[in-house]
């Protein structure tokens, strides 16, 4: 693929787009994909699903009945245990794996659940996690091991896991519902499905990454196949496997709210969901914080347990020192069970002592909203008129006396076209062909808006980008994916998803990378940003949504901000990591050549960190897509909304098509950014 040929392809595309736009009034089929060409995929899917439910339904129901046993048993146990005992045991565990800092944090976090009066609901949610995580870990470990040993299995498992992770959870809630019935177990199954992929990945990765010499040493020691696996491979991969357990658990927590959509009864996810639906901001926040805290506590405990397997043990250590924490925990449990009999306060926290500041908080929020109504409105309209609408509908339709304060007159339009053409031409003369192409595309996009462009042009841009990133194979794959979206009749919604997610990702990437650059040069900034990133990442997606709903109500702008809040984290992380990872000798060499700080950044560090930055972009997109689906709750009109509609109406076909469509977009973006990153790495000799 020579540079010249791609340049000509781009020129042709720009030219054809302009021609098509010139005839847009007469050639409707150029602008919108004709309905007559669509296939009735929704019906096919529904018919297929009906058949599956009819034939295999009873088997699935039976499974769901079996799973009810461990579920109710764990629930029963957690409700039987005095709250003081549960809190105490978690505090002891925190102290054992980390130290007093984590112990204090755990105590405060758990005590919050008690004081706020959500203990019962919290324990129901915890039960869901406590059953789904071991199940997901066991399944994931077996599947991951299988993928490690069998190449053929690996070729099936890896794409399946990719798909499971990219198809929005909402999309497979409905099939689960149809197959397994209603109730807590359904939530459990959805959690397990969502939580398995990280375990599979980490297991395989851990097993693959073992030092070859360790394996050979095991063989030379005369290990049998069984010994090789259990005594050499698994222990050597243990750290990575435990990381998988940690990620699996976070995934299970993030499913709590979503699972309660189909199986929620008096658990904390249900609380959050109902309050969001009723727009009870304070109540939703109070309940959302419970999930966030629970996730953080469990994350910190398992992460420390995975990392800090401190080698203080030894042959001669006595029984008591070795099992000191277990002994303390057992004694504590016995004492607490007796004490709870004597002091019922320890068994059930009295209602009268609870603190539930929802009303006060709502008053405060209302005061804030009234007081700063002007400012909030100004922010919202500015963003809407000067950023979001131009991208969505184009300057052509956005500029009006009502929005921008003046009419978009004919001379102005001509002026815009001439200015942009001049800029592109000037870049072309200076032989910066890519810059010229970029300017031309951007000018067209801003004038007509993404919804005002011919469908073939958007598809053309994506296919050409795919071709540049990954050659013919990726271009063909992208074409097939886009064709699916069109034939299934969800192209308009896909365009909106593309617009919303694209804008959010572009902004997150820009802001996040800038923050990452600053953090890479300034330790104080880095130390300040890290806990914020950590928190945003462990925070369940729904909870992130709440504060934005509070200030900006429903709508695209709220969705945009929520997506950005979540997607900015990987941009920051990868930028900082990439820039800090630039070879120190190269930096020294550049300093010796007399590079200024600015030159160092733009001409040495950023170019060298480019592959990492692109990986960051990749993750930013993936995070953005994950959040995009959730923002359907605040009333977007994209694929995510379709999924949500499908779920609410019990229409399997609609939800599934939209879900697959979303996954298709995500996968195209994923392969493209990965392709660019790989190319960059190769060029820098890092591949």
């Amino acid at each position, binding site marked *: 693929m020579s540079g010249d040929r791609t340049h000509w392809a781009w020129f042709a595309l720009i030219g054809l787009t302009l021609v098509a736009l010139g005839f847009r009034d007469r050639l409707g089929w150029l602008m919108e994909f004709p309905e007559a060409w669509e296939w009735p995929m929704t019906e096919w899917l529904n018919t297929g699903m009906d058949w599956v439910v009819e034939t295999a339904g009873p088997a699935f129901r039976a499974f769901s009945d079996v799973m009810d046993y461990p579920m109710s048993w764990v629930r029963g146990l957690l409700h039987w245990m005095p709250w003081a005992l549960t809190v105490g045991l978690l505090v002891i565990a925190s102290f054992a794996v980390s130290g007093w800092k984590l112990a204090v944090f755990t105590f405060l976090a758990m005590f919050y659940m008690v004081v706020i009066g959500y203990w019962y609901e919290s324990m129901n949610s915890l039960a869901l996690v406590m059953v789904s995580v071991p199940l997901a870990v066991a399944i994931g470990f077996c599947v991951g091991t299988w993928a490690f040993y069998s190449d053929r299995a690996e070729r099936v498992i890896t794409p399946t896991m990719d798909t499971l992770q990219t198809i929005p959870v909402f999309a497979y809630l409905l099939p689960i519902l149809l197959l397994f019935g209603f109730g807590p177990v359904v939530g459990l199954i959805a959690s397990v499905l969502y939580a398995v992929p990280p375990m599979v990945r980490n297991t395989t990765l851990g097993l693959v990454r073992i*030092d070859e*010499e*360790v394996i*050979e*040493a*095991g*063989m*030379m*020691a*005369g*290990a*049998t196949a069984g*010994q090789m696996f259990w*005594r*050499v491979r698994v*222990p*050597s991969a*243990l750290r990575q496997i435990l990381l998988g357990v940690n990620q699996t658990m976070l995934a299970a927590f993030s499913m709590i709210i979503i699972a309660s959509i189909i199986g929620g009864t008096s658990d904390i996810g249900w609380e959050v969901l109902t309050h969001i639906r009723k727009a009870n901001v304070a109540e939703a926040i109070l309940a959302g914080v419970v999930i966030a805290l629970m996730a953080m506590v469990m994350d910190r405990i398992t992460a420390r347990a995975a990392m800090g*397997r401190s*080698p203080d043990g*030894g*042959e001669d250590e006595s029984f008591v020192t070795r099992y000191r924490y277990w002994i303390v925990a057992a004694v504590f449990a016995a004492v607490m069970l007796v004490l709870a009999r004597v002091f019922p306060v320890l068994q059930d926290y009295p209602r009268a002592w609870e603190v539930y500041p929802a009303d006060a908080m709502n008053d405060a929020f209302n005061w804030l909203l009234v007081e700063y109504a002007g400012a909030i409105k100004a922010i919202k309209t500015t963003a809407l008129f000067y950023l979001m609408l131009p991208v969505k509908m184009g300057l052509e339709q956005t500029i009006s006396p009502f929005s921008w304060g003046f009419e978009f007159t004919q001379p102005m339009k001509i002026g815009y076209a001439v200015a942009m053409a001049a800029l592109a031409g000037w870049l072309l003369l200076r032989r910066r062909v890519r810059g010229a192409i970029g300017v031309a595309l951007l000018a067209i996009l801003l004038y007509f808006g993404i919804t005002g462009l011919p469908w073939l042009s958007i598809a053309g841009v994506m296919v050409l980008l795919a071709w540049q990133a990954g050659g013919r194979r990726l271009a063909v794959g992208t074409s097939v994916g886009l064709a699916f979206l069109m034939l299934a009749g969800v192209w308009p919604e896909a365009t909106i998803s593309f617009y919303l997610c694209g804008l959010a990702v572009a902004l997150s990437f820009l802001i996040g990378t800038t923050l990452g650059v600053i953090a890479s040069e300034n330790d104080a900034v880095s130390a300040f940003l890290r806990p914020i990133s950590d928190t945003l990442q462990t925070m369940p997606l729904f909870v992130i949504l709440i504060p934005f709903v509070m200030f900006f109500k429903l709508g695209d702008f709220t969705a945009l901000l929520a997506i950005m809040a979540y997607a900015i984290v990987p941009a920051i992380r990868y930028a900082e990591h990439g820039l800090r990872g630039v070879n120190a000798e190269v930096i020294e060499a550049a300093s010796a050549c007399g590079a200024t700080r600015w030159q160092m950044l733009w001409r040495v560090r950023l170019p060298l960190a480019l592959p990492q930055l692109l990986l960051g972009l990749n993750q930013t997109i993936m995070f953005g897509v994950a959040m995009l689906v959730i923002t359907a709750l605040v009333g977007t009109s994209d694929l995510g909304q379709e999924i949500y509609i499908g779920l609410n109406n019990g229409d399997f076909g609609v939800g599934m098509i939209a879900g697959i469509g979303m996954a298709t977009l995500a996968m195209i973006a994923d392969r493209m950014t990965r392709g660019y990153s790989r190319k960059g790495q190769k060029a820098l000799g890092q591949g």
Partner: protein
Amino acid sequence: MNDRAQDDGSGGDQPRLSCRHIWKVYGKKPEQYFPDGAPAVETPALAERIREDGAIPAAADVSFDVAVGEIFVIMGLSGSGKSTVVRCLSRLVEPTHGEILLDGEDLRAKSDKQMIEVRRHQIGMVFQNFGLMPHLSVWENVAFPLSLQGAAQDHTRERVGKVIELVGLEGREKSYPHQLSGGQQQRVGIARSLAVDPDLWLLDEPFSALDPLIRRQMQDEFLRIQNDLHKSIVFITHDFLEALRVADRMMIMRGGRVVQTGTPAQLITNPADDYVAEFTNDVPMVRVLRAYEVTDPEAGSAEGRERVAGDVSVEALLPMLSAHPEGLAVEQGGTVTAVVTAQSVVRALARLSEQEEAPA
């Protein structure tokens, strides 16, 4: 100067290890090159054909013997196939063709199960990057091969204690690999490979990952240990000087093939080709040459001269010669065989440096 080689190589006893025509070909259907169990054509031609097919002959017709108690060094640069050969010996890598006899038993005829037994009891191996289990302490790492066999507790404790003492790691038993320096880690690797008291000891570039000073120390340690244990050893290295220091006999490999096999002195004085001669350039001859190799046939009678042992290095000989300008009597096996003079030493060194300047 040939008698050392004869002693070691084809002495009366059966060799501990005997490799016959080992081939290892990486590629599609490597067996096709060996119809009826024998290579179809001469080695260079076959290797060339394999390369043309896009396959890789990592080892091509490698044959050698290792006598009981001998240190046999395989020396070659990276990609020469030396690591492949040493892995073929224990069938970590399955040879494509050839015979491997350990104490006269054909290892390639053994089942996987039997191979596990062979590895458990007869062969020990040391790895370049140590290959220690990161999750086990020093003690547990060394005990690992024994625990896989299900050896008795007492036996394990005794053996492990013994080899840990042998490599000088007492007091570090409870440490974990990541807490040790490279040199100490390799001591653990050595102790582990000796824990089952193997007959054949394979060392794959054991000291290459260490700093030069530590490397030197470890070489001395290794020789000391070998002095006690008298194992039969195959030692892999890319460092010619290291090979000279430890080898009884050595074999030079290049591109999968054997270039030359012999004692260090043989290689230096009679390099088979320019490739071998290239290595010998950097070698300080005074350290390699022994007194019996620089004698003066025309010096006359040895009567009345001071005696010196035949295997003294020239380096050690020089101060003695300066004290006895008339020359010294060289003694081998209790009898005086020749005379060495300052002139004969100078002549031998001059002859060798001429060879280096203009290799034949």
